[in-house]
Every structure is written in structure tokens, then in C-alpha cells.
């Protein structure tokens, strides 16, 4: 697949010479935790040490990649070539780029390099991941891609001082007290001060996941038994009074919880430090991070789906978080997922939310929507399902922990009733001029919106249970669905409503031509 067009300006570029080092470090980083575990248990099973030899081929591969990967810019596209015997040449038109992420760890910042991740709408993986490039190259790349977008948009004056550099320049400007030399068209939409980061750390409570993972790992490697955990702990309890046991247990739990909270706070603070969401022409740009700096760009029109999340803690703090979905790159894990999807606006007040939503779709206001709630039959079905699950779970527990497990029914049934009642109150949909909105959830509430020009297949589903009540559920499929943890799948609609709503949505979708961009 070759193109007759010669490279516009750029000659072929290599990755930065330090890239094998950074990539090898990346592979090694993944092995740190297993390494600790193996080191701890190694006396008994020394063969496990040899597993680390598996890292050697990946290091060799990174060196090979450094010598084979080349990229350059042609008109309106970027070309990435790799391979030695089997060449692969990939052309990525700028206009197909869904989002661009730049990442810089502390070490990379010292070396003046950064990672670039280009995503198009296609399938699973980012179209191109370039690890690592020198910062001037990255700046040039950014400039070209965005310049192209601006030519296409033809309304925003070219602005070369964007990206993380721009912030430093802004500070310089402030120091000098002189007016900015270049016209800065960036408009700051959201900035998270340290206090907001603390709140976010509380809400996210990342540590919990880490503890669960650690416990899983401990089971996996039989660490409890290797360290005779129970034997070591037993003496503490052997001659203890019950007061002492209660104190010990409560103290351990509290201390553990405090540690988790601290971890979460610190993690959030470092990761999202100085979080900024700005609007630059038709793009949204995100920047954050203290040691590892992230910078992402989401073209406005690539946003397929908008989702607002509100946990109990969010409500206690009078805030919500806003996520957006763009197409492509679905299968990436949580940590690798494009940051723009994870944290479009991690913590906003209701007022800011209104502004942001209007920024994404002018004229759209979530408060102004005319919500259609669930009727009595739907609520009854929700309640019945919750009760059934609660009883099933209690029966299971009763069988497992005979006979006291059955007592769980005293907690599960009221919980099921409360959960279904709350869910029934919140569940609603709204069909507005530009698209469809759906909200659901009992304690963690999610409100999502998609638009006629972004919705794909509209489908109605009828389970045998639905049929008994002459009901159906309506699903609206979008590109890249699921990354925000919510989908538009409206249950318990009466047949007539589901049918006419489905037909209207399909007609409106057909009339509004789908645009990736």
C-alpha cells in the first residue's frame, strides 16, 4: 500500500534513541509485583525465578522496534512504517483521528521525551502508539494535526502554543506581567484545585481495588499458609479478653481504611494534579498530572455519548462526574484506556455541568429535559425481581452456612425493597429534539445522553417476562459504547411506547447522517 504523494515536509523520523530504555522499563514495571511475590516465596519454588527470563525477548523486541519504526507526515495524513522483513505501512488521515493522548512520566520529562497515542474509530487498539518521541517532535506533530483540523474547521486562528508547553508559557507571562504575545484561543472550562482533588480522592477510593487485588494475589500464591498467618496471629487472641479482640479487630479495620484513603488521596493528587479541561476551537483538551503528565485531545464532534455519574459520595459533596465516549480502542484495560474517556470532567458542580453539557451540545440542558418516569407496573416488576434475587441469595447463604446464613434474609430483603424503590424512582427516559437521554441507578446514579446523529442500531427486546406484561425494552447502540459504564437500554416500556419511540428514533437517526467527525 504505497502512495504516490511524496512526504510534504517531513523526512522519515525514528523514535527517540532512549525509547528502548523506556519500553524495557515499561515491561519491567509490570514485573515488579510478581517479582516481590516470587522473592518472598522463592525458597520453596525457585524455578519461578526463571520466569523473569520472559522479559528478555520483549526487550529485544523493543530494540528491534526502535530500529524499524519510522514515521513521517504527508499531506493530511501521518504514515507509520514498521517491520524489517515484513513491512507494514499505515496511513492515518488526520481527519480520522478520534483523539490524541500525550503522556510524560517524570523520568521522560527529564529526558525531554513523551509518549503519543493516536486513536481512530477503528476497532480495538490505538491506531498508533509511539513510545517515545522527543518533545519538539511531539510539538510539531500536535501542531500539524491540529492545524489541519483548524483548516477544516476554518474558524479558529492557528495557535501554536498549546499543549503542556502552553501552561508554562502562561506562567512565564504572568511572571513578566507582560501581555501574551500570541493570541491564545484556549478557553478554560474546568480546573480542579487541590481541594477538589481531595474530594475526588475520597470518592474514587482507589485503594480498595488494590487491596482486593493484593488479597487475590495472596490466595493465588498461598501466602497465608507460607507465612503461617493464622499461627502468628493466634497468640494475640489466645489469652485475650473479648474486649481486647474487638479493639484489635476494629483498630486494624480502621487503620486499614485510613491507609486506603490516604493512598487514594495521594494517588489522585499526583495523577490529576492541576487538571485542566480547555476548549480550543472544536477540540476539547485535557491536561493533568504532577509526575506523569497527561495531555489529551477530544474533537468535539467525535463525542458519541455523554454520561453523568453520581455516587452517594458525589451527592454528599454536591458534585457529579462527567464522562464522554468516543469510538474505537474499546478493549483497552482501565489503566491504558484513553484518559479523555476516563476523566473528561472528573468532578464538577451542577452549575459547571450545565455549562459543560451546553459546550458539548449547544442548547442541550439536562435539567431542562422532560423525563418520563417508570409507571406502577414497572416498579412492581423491579421490586419483584429484587426480592427474587434477595431470596435466592439468602437461600444460597443458608445452604452454605447452615443454618445461620439464612439470617441474611433479614438484611437482604429490606435492602432489595429499598434498592428497587429508589431505582424505580430514578429510572426514566427523555426523548428530546436532538437525541435520547436515559437515567438509571439506585444509589450510584447515571444519566446518559446520545444524539440522533450518533445513534446506530435501534432495537427492541422482549423477554418472556416482558411479554407477560406486554412490555419491551429499547436499546440505542452507539460507537464505543460501554466505556462510561452505562448504556442506553431502557427497560419496562409498554409495547406501544417502545414501538413508536423506536420508530421515531430510527427515522430521526436515518435523517441525521452519521458523522464520525
Amino acid at each position, binding site marked *: 500500500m504505497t502512495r504516490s504523494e511524496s512526504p510534504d515536509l517531513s523526512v522519515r523520523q525514528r523514535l527517540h534513541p532512549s525509547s528502548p530504555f523506556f519500553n524495557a522499563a515499561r515491561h519491567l514495571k509490570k514485573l515488579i509485583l510478581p517479582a516481590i511475590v516470587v522473592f518472598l516465596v522463592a525458597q520453596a519454588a525457585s524455578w519461578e525465578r526463571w520466569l523473569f527470563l520472559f522479559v528478555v525477548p520483549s526487550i529485544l523486541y523493543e530494540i528491534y522496534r526502535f530500529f524499524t519504526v519510522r514515521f513521517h507526515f504527508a499531506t493530511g495524513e501521518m504514515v507509520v512504517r514498521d517491520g524489517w522483513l515484513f513491512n507494514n505501512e499505515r496511513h492515518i488521515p488526520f481527519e480520522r483521528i478520534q483523539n490524541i493522548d500525550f503522556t510524560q512520566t517524570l523520568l521522560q520529562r527529564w529526558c525531554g521525551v513523551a509518549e503519543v497515542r493516536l486513536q481512530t*474509530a477503528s476497532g480495538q487498539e490505538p491506531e498508533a502508539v509511539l513510545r517515545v518521541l522527543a518533545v519538539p517532535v511531539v510539538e510539531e506533530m500536535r501542531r500539524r494535526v491540529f492545524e489541519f483540523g483548524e483548516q477544516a474547521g476554518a474558524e479558529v486562528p492557528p495557535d501554536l502554543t498549546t499543549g503542556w508547553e502552553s501552561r508554562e508559557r502562561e506562567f512565564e507571562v504572568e511572571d513578566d506581567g507582560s501581555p501574551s504575545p500570541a493570541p491564545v484561543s484556549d478557553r478554560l472550562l474546568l480546573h480542579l484545585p487541590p481541594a477538589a482533588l481531595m474530594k475526588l480522592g475520597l470518592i474514587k477510593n482507589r485503594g480498595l481495588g488494590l487491596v482486593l487485588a493484593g488479597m487475590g494475589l495472596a490466595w493465588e500464591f498461598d501466602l497465608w499458609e507460607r507465612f503461617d498467618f493464622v499461627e502468628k496471629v493466634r497468640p494475640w487472641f489466645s489469652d485475650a479478653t473479648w474486649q481486647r479482640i474487638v479493639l484489635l479487630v476494629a483498630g486494624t479495620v480502621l487503620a486499614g481504611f485510613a491507609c486506603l484513603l490516604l493512598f487514594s488521596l495521594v494517588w489522585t493528587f499526583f495523577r490529576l494534579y492541576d487538571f485542566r479541561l480547555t476548549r480550543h476551537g472544536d477540540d476539547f483538551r485535557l491536561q493533568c498530572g504532577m509526575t506523569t503528565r497527561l495531555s489529551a485531545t477530544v474533537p468535539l464532534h467525535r463525542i458519541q455519548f455523554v454520561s453523568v455519574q453520581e455516587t452517594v459520595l458525589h451527592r454528599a459533596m454536591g458534585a457529579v462526574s462527567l464522562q464522554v465516549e468516543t*469510538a474505537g480502542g*474499546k478493549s483497552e484495560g482501565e489503566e491504558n484506556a484513553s484518559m479523555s474517556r476516563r476523566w473528561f470532567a472528573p468532578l464538577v458542580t451542577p452549575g459547571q455541568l450545565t455549562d459543560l453539557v451546553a459546550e458539548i451540545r449547544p442548547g442541550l440542558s439536562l435539567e431542562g429535559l422532560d423525563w*418520563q*418516569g*417508570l*409507571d*406502577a*407496573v*414497572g416498579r412492581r416488576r423491579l421490586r419483584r425481581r429484587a426480592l427474587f434475587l434477595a431470596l435466592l441469595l439468602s437461600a444460597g447463604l443458608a445452604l452454605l452456612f447452615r443454618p445461620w446464613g439464612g439470617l441474611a434474609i433479614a438484611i437482604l430483603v429490606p435492602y432489595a425493597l429499598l434498592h428497587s424503590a429508589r431505582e424505580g424512582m430514578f429510572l426514566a*427516559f427523555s*426523548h428530546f429534539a436532538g437525541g435520547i437521554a436515559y437515567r438509571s441507578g439506585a444509589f450510584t446514579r447515571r444519566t446518559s445522553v446520545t444524539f440522533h446523529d450518533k445513534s*446506530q*442500531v*435501534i*432495537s*427492541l*427486546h*422482549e*423477554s*418472556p417476562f416482558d*411479554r407477560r*406484561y*406486554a*412490555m*419491551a425494552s429499547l*436499546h440505542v*447502540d*452507539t*460507537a*464505543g*459504547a*460501554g466505556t462510561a459504564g452505562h*448504556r442506553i437500554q431502557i427497560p*419496562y*416500556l*409498554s*409495547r*406501544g*411506547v*417502545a*414501538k*413508536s*419511540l*423506536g*420508530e*421515531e*428514533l*430510527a*427515522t430521526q*437517526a*436515518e*435523517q*441525521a*447522517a*452519521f*458523522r*464520525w467527525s
Partner: protein
Amino acid sequence: MRSEKAGLSGFGFEKEQRLSEEPEFLEAALAADPESSSPPADSHDVPGGDQEATPWRALHPRYVELERLVSWTVTGLFLLLPATVTLTLAWSHGWLPMIWRGLATGAGVGAALLLAWTSQVYPQKAFERTRYRLSDFGLEIRKGVYWRKVLSLPRARVQHTDVREGPLQRRYEMATLVIHTAGTENASVELEGLPRDVAFEIRDQLLAGTADDAV
């Protein structure tokens, strides 16, 4: 486009309305009893049913025949035959205590009946339940015997299409139409058992509609 403004006022569930106005939502294209709903062999169109302009169409009339053939072959060769041989051997050689042998035989007969049902009856039901039509906004597909689905695929959302023909399908002049969208849950929608020429016809019509939509 029929729209019921009254019905749109909520998730609104009203028994009266269900019984009078929407007697057969998914069944709209089908006649009331299953016997008369199987279309005449020479036509793919379903008589009666929906009032809208484009009629719902049924699959290839020999779809049931092909499905039964495939299903019987698979269950017969891989499940029924080995089970029969094992059970016969078990009885003739006296393997296992009598009670287990009896239970195994019972289970075997039960499974055989179930498999016979899925091989013989289910294809007919699936055939009766599956309908499609090209309407104003694109392709609509109804399918599912117990868990029923109506898919509305707007013409402008078709990314690309495949027409698949297996060797057996070719003998029966059938094909599977696969339509790819940019979606996630329905990234590709399959319609199996179409008459071959109809599959190509639908493909051409869908593609003709998308020609002017630059993605």
C-alpha cells in the same frame, strides 16, 4: 410513520390499550395462528399483518428444511448416536448398578426428546418469528422465539455489508446477509436464511442509500 402521542406520555402501561390498539406488537406481521402464518411456497411476502406500506417478508421457504437437516445431522451424529451406543453397551454388558443405568437411560431419553424438539420444532418457530423489511429508514429485522428482538438499522448507519454463503446454503440458494455498523452491541447484524437473490438485492439497496453519506 405511526406515532401514538397518547402512548408517549410515559412508560405508560395500560391494559386496555394493549388489548385493543396494540394486540400484536411483534406478531404484527404474523397471522393470528401459526399454521396460517407460514407463507405460500411461491412468495416471500406475508399476507395481511402490518398496515404500513412495505410489507414484512419471510425468510426462504426452505429455511426450515435446511435448519432441520443441519440440526438433525449434528445432534444425531454427535449426541444421539454416541449416547445410544453407550447405553446399549451399558445394558448388554451390565455396566454400573441397575439404578444408575436406569437413570442414565431416563436422562438420555429426556435429552433426546429435547434435542428432537429443538431440531424439529424450533426451526419452524424461528422461521415464523423471523421477518424483515426495507422501510423508509432502513432495514428492520424481527427475530427471536422466546427472547424477541426488533432491530431497526438506519440506512445511513451501514458501514459495510457481507453476503455469506456456505456450501449447504448454496445448494438451497440461500445466503446470510451481514451488516456492519459502527455500533458496539450491534456492531454486526446477521440475517440468516435469506433467498440468495434477495440478500444481494437488499445489500445493493442499502449500499445505494449510503453512497452519498461521507463518513
